[in-house]
């Protein structure tokens, strides 16, 4: 039900010209208002916390839709930030929110200072759910200024923020914002791969070369099959990460996140290859998804960082402990 509403709204209010404006750095305030009026920023909260108590499957569907439409707003981040803030007992965000971990910040005489690198749409946020060590802070907009501009592979803004804030006491950190963000990104990756596959099927089904549609060539069919496999893996990986996040298992988050990141790269190349040169342009919509896949796969901790976390746990488990560890993921 919610998924259908989101789908309809995005089909109506997010067209390619809006995407182009967002790519130029424009904040789509109308779209943001519409999405927040649907209550989406609270979509990951339980009913007790003021959310809708969606099932895991419904949450996943909503998050995948954000990827499926390459929504150029920090909505997933806001949903995750609110989940984190609610779990910590802190007030929820009043607008868009960011999710970050920055252990290099200093807290002296109650003042929190330092730089938080590359926050999605940082200038447009109401607050930041910021982890420093084992504390979570809800840093309001007045607590930071722009330190440096930066951009994602899809050209959406990723400014670095100079924090200078008279901190409140914050709260004990319920779970790491990187784990939260990595899980959200896994769903978005799965969603973007859905679109990449759909576009590839329709393009190869209509584009004619050598007197027949491209998709009548077995070589093309087999690559589409491989893309479907990567999509299946990304979707399962996102679900796996979300379930692990819910039980506080960071290794499960690592496993799900890593596999989704891998699918993002493989899937983007298969889709682009299937499109030919047109897939390499801004004229065709495919680039919305490929550039987003190349963005999302490297955020909220990198592949190396997550792989080392999971890999060192695997090595520590040892030959005898490895399989038992795998079955807990």
């Amino acid at each position, binding site marked *: 039900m919610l998924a259908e509403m989101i789908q309809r709204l995005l089909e109506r209010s997010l067209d390619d010209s809006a995407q182009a404006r967002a790519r130029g750095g424009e904040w789509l305030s109308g779209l943001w208002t519409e999405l927040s009026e649907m209550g989406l920023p609270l979509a990951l909260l339980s009913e007790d916390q003021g959310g809708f108590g969606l099932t*895991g499957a419904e949450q996943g569907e909503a998050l995948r839709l954000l990827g499926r439409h390459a929504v150029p707003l920090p909505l997933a981040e806001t949903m995750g930030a609110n989940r984190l803030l609610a779990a910590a007992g802190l007030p929820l965000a009043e607008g868009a929110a960011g999710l970050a971990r920055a252990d290099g910040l200093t807290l002296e005489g109650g003042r929190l200072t330092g730089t938080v690198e590359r926050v999605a749409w940082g200038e447009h946020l109401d607050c930041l759910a910021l982890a420093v060590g084992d504390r979570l802070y809800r840093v309001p907009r007045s607590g930071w200024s722009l330190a440096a501009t930066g951009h994602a592979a899809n050209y959406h803004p990723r400014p670095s923020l100079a924090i200078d804030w008279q901190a409140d006491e914050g709260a004990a950190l319920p779970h790491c914002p990187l784990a939260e963000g990595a899980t959200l990104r896994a769903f978005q990756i799965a969603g973007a791969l859905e679109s990449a596959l759909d576009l590839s*099927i329709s393009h190869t089904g209509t584009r004619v070369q050598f007197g027949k549609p491209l998709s009548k060539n077995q070589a093309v069919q087999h690559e589409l099959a491989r893309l479907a496999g990567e999509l299946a893996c990304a979707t399962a990986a996102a679900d796996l990460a979300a379930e692990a996040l819910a039980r506080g298992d960071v290794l499960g988050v690592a496993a799900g996140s890593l596999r989704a990141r891998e699918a993002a790269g493989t899937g983007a190349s298969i889709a682009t290859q299937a499109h030919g040169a047109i897939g390499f342009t801004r004229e065709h919509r495919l680039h919305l998804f490929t550039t987003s896949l190349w963005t999302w796969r490297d955020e909220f901790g990198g592949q190396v960082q997550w792989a080392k976390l999971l890999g060192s746990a695997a090595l520590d488990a040892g030959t005898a402990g490895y399989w038992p560890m795998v079955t807990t993921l």
Partner: protein
Amino acid sequence: MSAIPFPAPPADSETVIALRAEVRAFLAEELASRTDRQRSDSWCGADKDFSRKMGQRGWLGMTWPKRYGGHERTAYERYVVVEEMLAAGAPVGAHWIADRQSGPSILKFGTEEQKQYFLPKIAAGELYFSIGMSEPDSGSDLAATRTRAVRDGDVYRVTGTKVWTSFAHQSDWAIMFCRTSGTPADRHNGTSQLLIDLKNTPGLTIRPIIDLAGQHHFNEMHFEDAAIPASQLLGSEGQGWAQVMSELAFERSGPERFLSSIELLYQLIAILRGRQSDAAQITLGRLTARLAVLRRLSRSVTSMLQEEQDAGLQASIVKDVGALFEQSLPDIARELVDCEPDPLAASGYAAVLANIVHNSPSWSLRGGTREILRGIIARGLGTR
């Protein structure tokens, strides 16, 4: 939308957790003296005593009705037993086909008499099956079968040759796919499945085919006017194709489709542990992520099988992605550890590496080649 849906896998109930612990304890004891080299045989390792012990534990025919010797447990409980066996390198080869595939086919298509005869013995770990599908001129193109069964009173007279029949020299029975009417040009029509007694069928000769590593596991089965009682028809005459297709989801989605080289992964961990190498950690992390997600997809298909949904497409994805994973391991291991593979070493890394290097090419051939699977998936996507 073209995504192929995989439902959420079943949760680990108390029963499942207890079952897993029970299986692990059993395996720790039973396999104590099994070498790493032997474990690396995965489901090609066979030991009939071990199969009987599994039967005694109630771990064969787990999902079948009790009146046929089954245990009426869930598909997921069976999954747990199977994956623990494979992860431990248990010698499950003798009963593998019977428990996975032949038994379920007999349960679905067999006569009451066939069910009563075969199923309790399979569930006890005492009767073993092979699959007679492939032929010299009919591999991927199964419908091109030339083996003919001609009805003659109470028997079918069978002539033809089957190849690559795994364990035909050790199994008791086979389910054989053949043509009962028409010609190969009729394709799917006119094919049937017959139950073949491998030990007592005059006119049937079984001859070994030695694989590239020098091992004997598959065979040629030659039928020369062999008389097969008509009561050994499985299911309906002419419905062979549909019956075979219904087996494939069982055949293609299980954990044997990505755990074949797990012993090499264990060996790699033993060597790399304590090295504090970034490359080792990163590689292990990425492999573990792939493995965890494959397990999830495979368990997801199990829940579809439990609900008796058609999972042919999903199973093809599991097998395709799974084979890529298990076949990637030798090369990934070679990026981290220098070692010359030695097939005649009794144990250790060199022996395991050799066994895996020798066997891994078969994993994208048997049970449907990579190309055939991708064709099935592409059809599911609507592009064929």
